[in-house]
């Protein structure tokens, strides 16, 4: 019984962490969001289903910490024409499942479904897909080593993706 309870507590803590990440992107608060990533953290939005790598095939986004730092600065730059508009989002995350768990360390791989309604240029756009988070357990909570965003229409005709989803 206690094992089951502990699993549920872990799942709950992970869900809470994913919601926290999403809420930073909802506002958006890229300073706070970036702090959730490890120093070797990566954010990847592939351009095809089951994309094997980001180096030999085009991606919509593929940022390490350096690119995240640049993007964070670009996002608030007063002369960034495409950012001269209100950007807000509402993320719903569901179907959270732990796929891999390193019992000794607590590091884990978690999949979830997401729907993100993005408000940009006076228009609401619906993005949907699956997240795959590789999480690193901290003394308190988690940090993200790798986040993969599988859009269901990643290989379709898309408009501007103005911010991380």
């Amino acid at each position, binding site marked *: 019984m206690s094992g089951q309870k502990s699993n549920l507590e872990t799942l709950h803590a992970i869900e809470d962490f994913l919601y926290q990440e999403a809420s930073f992107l909802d506002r958006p608060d890229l300073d706070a969001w970036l702090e959730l990533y490890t120093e070797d953290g990566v954010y990847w939005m592939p351009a095809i289903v089951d994309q094997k790598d980001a*180096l030999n095939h*085009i991606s*919509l986004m593929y940022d390490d910490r*350096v690119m995240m730092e640049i993007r964070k*600065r670009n996002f608030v*730059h007063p002369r960034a*024409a495409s950012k001269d508009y209100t950007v807000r989002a509402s993320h719903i995350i569901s179907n959270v499942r732990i796929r891999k768990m390193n019992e000794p360390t607590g590091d884990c791989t978690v999949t979830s479904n997401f729907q993100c309604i993005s408000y940009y240029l006076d228009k609401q756009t619906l993005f949907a897909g699956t997240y795959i988070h590789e999480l690193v357990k901290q003394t308190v909570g988690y940090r993200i080593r790798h986040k993969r965003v599988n859009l269901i229409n990643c290989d379709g*005709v898309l408009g*501007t993706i103005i911010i991380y989803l």
Partner: protein
Amino acid sequence: MNYNNPEVADLVRPTQIHRSVYTDPAIFELEMQRIWGRAWIFIGHESQVPESGSFISLKLGKYPVVMVRDQVGKVHVLFNRCGHKGTKLVDKPCGNTGGGFTCCYHGWSYRLDGKLVGVPHPAGYKDTGFDKNDPQYSMQKLAQYDSYRGFVFATMDASAPDLKTWLGGAGDVLDNLCDRSPEGEVEVAGGVLRYEHECNWKMFIENLNDTMHPMIVHKSVVDAANDYISTLPEGSPQRTEAEIIPPFGASYKNFEATGITGFRYGHHYDGGKSSIHADYSVDPEYEAAMIKAYGPERTREILTFNTHNTLYYPSLTIKSAVQNIRVVRPIAVDKCIVETWSFRLKGAPDSMLQRTIMYSRLINSNGSMVGPDDLTAYRRMQEGLQSPASDWVEMHRNYGSDVDKGDRLTNSGTSDLDMRSEYAAWREYMLSKVA
């Protein structure tokens, strides 16, 4: 409104363009017939149809077409339409259709070169005047299609000049792209991005060699990159991104020095001796493969021919030094799709494709920090030009000082020669048959 030829002629002056060229759906329809129906339009690269039955499907202007390789290895460009009731025969962007095309509706079947071969339950056609061998019931071939070093173009105009003549001196840049491979050949690799643009298709191509915009439009990403790079400890490893992003903030003087070269039929390029891609580091393994293939002198010649963007008016723009291309597909007067494709230099180390992929992602992706800023400017133009406050868009920069070098005009890299070349072709296509 409907336009007669003198009215069309009035829309483009030597240094001014009437706003309706960007905003009037009737002009868009005319452009689809007279420019996109007459010019050579980029279809795809032969490497996209490697085997018998391989196809890609797309629209040439408003019309669905398919590029397919037949059993003997020849590549055809056919209208994607069943000879029976007009159903599109393939409806995926790419695939393999086996030994021929079969319609999903009534099962009419065609050879890979489009010839109709099978009509189910043929008894009903006896004595009706229908003849399966009448070419009108086959899939129709484009009036002309041809390939230049693997790049396949097609035109709906049987009287258009041949492809090589049409490419003219601008073909040097396609050569340079292929010559950058130690084997002299490139192939499509690493997928495609399809980016919807809420603007007239011409705004995208007019931006390519508009060198007065990067230091303004792309200042934000250059600042952000330089700002962060300056926080890194001295001796931090050089990042490829740091070679790709900051040159977008190059000065007026730098861009002026690159020069613009314009050709007949609206083609042009920026650069030649130098461009914003000129200072990329060279992978020693790549350089060695090139020298082995071409010798040191020819290698130097190939690698120092540095152009920025080259436009093959109206549909294709290439970056030979980067090995990527963008293709514009018009949808409506205020909507187009821009495709970004990357190329592998055959015989070159993987690092070369990886830099190309990084470039396409950093600069051209829907999620990049460069392309979306350009698009914002186009979208604002599209809205601003609705206003009757003034009817004209201007392109005076360095007007009157173009240098005529026979098959080409040259001028300062910050001149509007690129745009004037496009509109010389626009007038020619819109007002008469181009011969």
